[in-house]
């Protein structure tokens, strides 16, 4: 047995006794990134399939969300910096090996189509909303945005351009969204020093989880029966893939070298066991999956219920991964 302790009085904030530098803001940032990616993927995919008029909720109205949550994510990212006033250094440099750099650039680039998309459909969105809920408070703001967009020639020009090249733009947006979705996992998996994160499965896992939270949100928001059912089914598939990937993650780690084995044990008997398997796996994945199966079999279940569990489960998953990942480390004896 070896016991080690600092005898020179080391107790540095966020580093000792174990690393907890990244917290809530990063977890929320990753969550919002995944959600935005999912909404953009679905909206653009439905557009490419020629379903924009059949499913206006997904293809048009939901596109209001990504620009808002991406900006909020970027604000969180800057807020979480310790040397905030120098944040512009992020935009002066692109370092291909740094996932942080990739993320900042992807988020910046994706803002362009994310903003153009709702602008293209602004009239349709306003009509859709006022038809269903004329008292909707958002309408005033949207009308104002619409008026502003029409006032400035340059904005009109870009919207026109986007309309002309809407198809190629949709393809590019889907690719960018996939990068964004995978990036939310890669940001963590690039850290060799943190065994829990340092696995290639994290990218696909975060992408799946993000797309699943997006599907849940769309299922919740949609008023169209077919659309609801479609997302319900899709979400069931995504949840199954996610559960499969999570089990794979821990199987791989348990069969891995000592550091990874020890990391897996944090979740298989260690301090993160109950919160992960009950909170994320149980309440965030299995329980809403059961609700959705019941719903698809025509039991009356309000769609916000599984959606809420999936969304909170997705957020909880990122919180736990961010904290537990920093807790996992090499044995530096």
């Amino acid at each position, binding site marked *: *047995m*070896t*016991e*080690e*302790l*600092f*005898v*020179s009085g*080391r*107790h*540095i*904030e*966020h*580093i*000792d006794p174990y*690393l907890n*530098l*990244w917290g809530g803001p990063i977890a929320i940032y990753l969550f919002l990134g995944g959600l935005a990616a999912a909404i953009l993927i679905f909206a653009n995919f439905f557009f490419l399939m020629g379903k924009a008029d059949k499913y206006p909720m997904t293809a048009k109205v939901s596109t209001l969300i990504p620009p808002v949550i991406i900006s909020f994510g970027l604000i969180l990212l800057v807020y*979480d*910096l*310790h*040397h*905030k*006033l*120098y*944040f512009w*250094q*992020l935009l*002066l*440099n692109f*370092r291909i*090996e*740094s*996932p*942080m*750099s990739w993320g*900042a650039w992807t988020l910046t680039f994706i803002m362009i189509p994310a903003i153009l998309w709702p602008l293209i459909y602004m009239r349709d969105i306003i009509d859709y909303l006022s038809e269903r809920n004329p008292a909707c408070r958002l309408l005033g703001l949207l009308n104002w945005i619409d008026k502003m967009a029409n006032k400035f020639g340059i904005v009109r020009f870009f919207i026109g351009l986007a309309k002309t090249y809407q198809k190629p733009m949709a393809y590019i947006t889907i690719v960018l969204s996939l990068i964004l979705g995978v990036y939310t996992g890669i940001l963590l998996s*690039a*850290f*060799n*020093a*943190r065994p829990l994160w340092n696995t290639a499965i994290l990218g696909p896992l975060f992408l799946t989880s993000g797309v699943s939270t997006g599907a849940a949100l769309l299922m919740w928001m949609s008023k169209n029966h077919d659309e609801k059912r479609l997302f319900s089914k899709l979400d069931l598939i995504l949840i199954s893939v996610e559960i499969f990937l999570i089990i794979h993650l821990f199987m791989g780690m348990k069969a891995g*070298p000592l*550091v990874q084995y020890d990391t897996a044990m944090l979740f298989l008997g260690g301090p993160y066991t109950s919160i992960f398997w009950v909170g994320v796996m149980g309440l965030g994945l299995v329980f809403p999956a059961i609700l959705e199966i019941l719903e698809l079999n025509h039991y009356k279940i309000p769609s916000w219920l599984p959606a809420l569990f999936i969304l909170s489960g997705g957020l909880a998953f990122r919180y736990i991964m961010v904290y537990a990942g*920093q807790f996992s*480390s*090499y*044995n*530096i*004896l």
Partner: protein
Amino acid sequence: MRYAMAMDTRKCVGCGDCVVACQTENDVPIGYCRDWIVEAVQGTYPDTVQMHFKSERCNHCDNTPCVRTCPTGASHVIEGGIVKVTPNECIGCGACIVSCPYNARFVHPEGYIDKCTFCDHRVALGQDTACVAVCPTDALIFGDLDDAKSPVSIALKNNEWYVLAPEAGTKPQLYFLK
């Protein structure tokens, strides 16, 4: 040139002079440290119990995850393999802190990231680092690995040594003599 440090665990008495010397030399803010002492106890009383001390700091790794993950290039490697941070390029994102297996970096109260610099300002003048210069038992040895006659090369040639967590793949350059 490849600067490295050797640390003789048989000689260290855990006095902490290196820690204080560094804090003074480098104006390390109160409550922080760029190097630190670890007391390692092996065995269970009343059976054989062994104890030794280690003076630890940034390993100035050859394969630097902290430089790789830095989004701005603030973390960089200078002549001789010394890993440094440029404060006014650093945004304080913490990617480098999270990517260091040795927890050798910290957030300076001013917001940028700080760590051991191998006293590059002294080394440039041909002096030893502050911690090495002050060590009363000569447990710390500094020098250029590319020079076969440097103290560190000789120490590594004549002693058994190990490095911390070699499996992390960072090729650390702080060698512990045993």
